[in-house]
């Protein structure tokens, strides 16, 4: 029992550190990828290949002036970025990172909490995420921040619907809300994406909107709203907002990989006859590769597409994605009902 508690604590801190590290280096990768897409090199001065750049950026943010507008609501102003960061770190709790590992003859799950409503948990936490942005934008007492916050909330609510509807088909097929159960039903190459390509596409598009990434980065929208909800933020409070975006990117990549691309499964991997711990490590690397792939897609799209207009965003969410998702649910239901 004590062992299990200690193990969970180590695992939870490990995953926290991992997501922070990944987010840190995503900032570098994003700038590198942006450079490559624009025929540039990207940052390469701080350390070899610019590997120390995230450190330099972090130090810079820490030493910036802690500015607070004197009309701002002090408590809410600080609560905003804290909440965003907290929520970003919470989501990773239910993601299964790999098959069980064996320590001293006991097997432990590579998952912080295998709760039987894993998907609901993710949606609940992600929905709380919008509060961080809304509170921050409201507390700044600035019209641009408020506009950004309003956009963020309406956008997130609009896209969460289609997102949930696209997941319902997965739940219908699997018959479970547990993330581990969903992964285990995608053994080998039996991935959900082959059965739910439309659902995957809807989920992918909604994931862009949920993480406030281009082409749906209207809450920030520096061309119209200065900086959107974080206009009045500086120093590490701004850093938290920016950082949370990258953690969200990492986590939504993990969720997509888990729900649609078979999580840590890869065809032929379980036939290699590896010892359990090595197998767990390789499986984790497989999952990580899939997440990296999604991360690259996030960046690729960001440096390809211009920002949507606000009415286009709403039209796409309500008039295209929603009906498509409902249609997808209906078709899946009919197929399951008649065992086609």
């Amino acid at each position: 029992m004590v062992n299990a508690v200690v193990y969970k604590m180590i695992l939870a801190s490990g995953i926290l550190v991992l997501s922070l590290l990944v987010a840190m280096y995503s900032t570098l990768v994003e700038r590198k990828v942006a450079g490559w897409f624009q025929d540039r090199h990207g940052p390469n001065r701080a350390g070899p290949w610019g590997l120390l750049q995230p450190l330099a950026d972090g130090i810079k943010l820490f030493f910036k002036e802690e500015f607070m507008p004197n009309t701002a609501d002090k408590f809410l102003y600080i609560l905003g970025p804290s909440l965003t960061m907290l929520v970003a770190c919470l989501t990773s709790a239910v993601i299964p990172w790999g098959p069980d590992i064996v320590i001293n003859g006991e097997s432990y799950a590579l998952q912080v909490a295998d709760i039987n409503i894993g998907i609901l948990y993710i949606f609940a936490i992600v929905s709380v995420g919008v509060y961080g942005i809304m509170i921050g934008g409201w507390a700044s007492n600035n019209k641009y921040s408020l506009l950004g916050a309003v956009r963020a909330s309406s956008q997130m609510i609009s896209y969460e619907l289609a997102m949930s509807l696209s997941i319902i088909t997965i739940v219908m097929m699997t018959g479970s809300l547990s993330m581990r159960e969903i992964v285990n039903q995608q053994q080998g190459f039996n991935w959900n994406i082959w059965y739910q390509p439309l659902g995957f596409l809807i989920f992918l598009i909604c994931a862009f909107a949920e993480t406030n990434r281009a082409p749906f980065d209207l809450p920030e929208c520096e061309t119209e709203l200065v900086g959107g909800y974080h206009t009045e933020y500086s120093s590490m409070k701004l850093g938290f907002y920016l950082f949370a975006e990258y953690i969200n990117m990492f986590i939504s990549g993990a969720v997509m990989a888990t729900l649609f691309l078979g999580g840590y499964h890869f065809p032929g991997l379980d036939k290699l006859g590896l010892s359990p711990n090595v197998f767990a490590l390789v499986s984790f690397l497989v999952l990580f590769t899939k997440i990296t792939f999604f991360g690259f897609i996030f960046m690729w799209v960001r440096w390809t597409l211009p920002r949507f207009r606000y009415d286009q965003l709403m039209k796409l969410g309500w008039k295209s994605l929603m009906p498509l998702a409902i249609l997808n649910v209906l078709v899946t239901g009919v197929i399951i009902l008649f065992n086609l």
Partner: protein
Amino acid sequence: MEPLTQRSKTVSDKKMTFAEKLYLPAILGGMRITFGHLFKKKTTIQFPEAKRPFAGVYRGRHVLKRDEAGRERCTACGLCAVACPAEAITMVAAERKPGEEGLYREEKYAAVYEINMLRCIFCGDCEEACPKEAIFLTDRLVASEYQRKPFIYGKELLVEPADPEKRIDVSERQTPEVLAFKKDRQHKHNN
């Protein structure tokens, strides 16, 4: 009506087709283009390590040459100052004293020789006017300054070091074309 340019395009407000309304084909097309750029040659020049090469005939900061024995070639004849369209060159001539034969090539030399780099237009007329092959334009750049005063370069900045190792190479700019141009008599200043 006559189109104003050859490049004008006809704009139509036709309804979008279903494929266009989906956006996805267009988005994938765009993503293909950006992906292609990943592997293109980077246009950046890594400045302090790599420098963009100057054209061979680049006309930059001047140098006052010395001869093989390390004596200043300039005799303060003033032809460069006369040729200078920007009136950037001034000089004060002096007579060579006995014992200074190792310093100056001929009996007359420039005690003061100043070029105002803010006035100079780097046309190279001084180089063409010089009968003693004393002044040349090089591929070096004039550094930026905070005040106007330092832009007036005196002899300490213009005359090249006497040490044969540290001489300024001006041969690159003296291409056959440049030399032919200098000899060309139809240019008034060469007469």
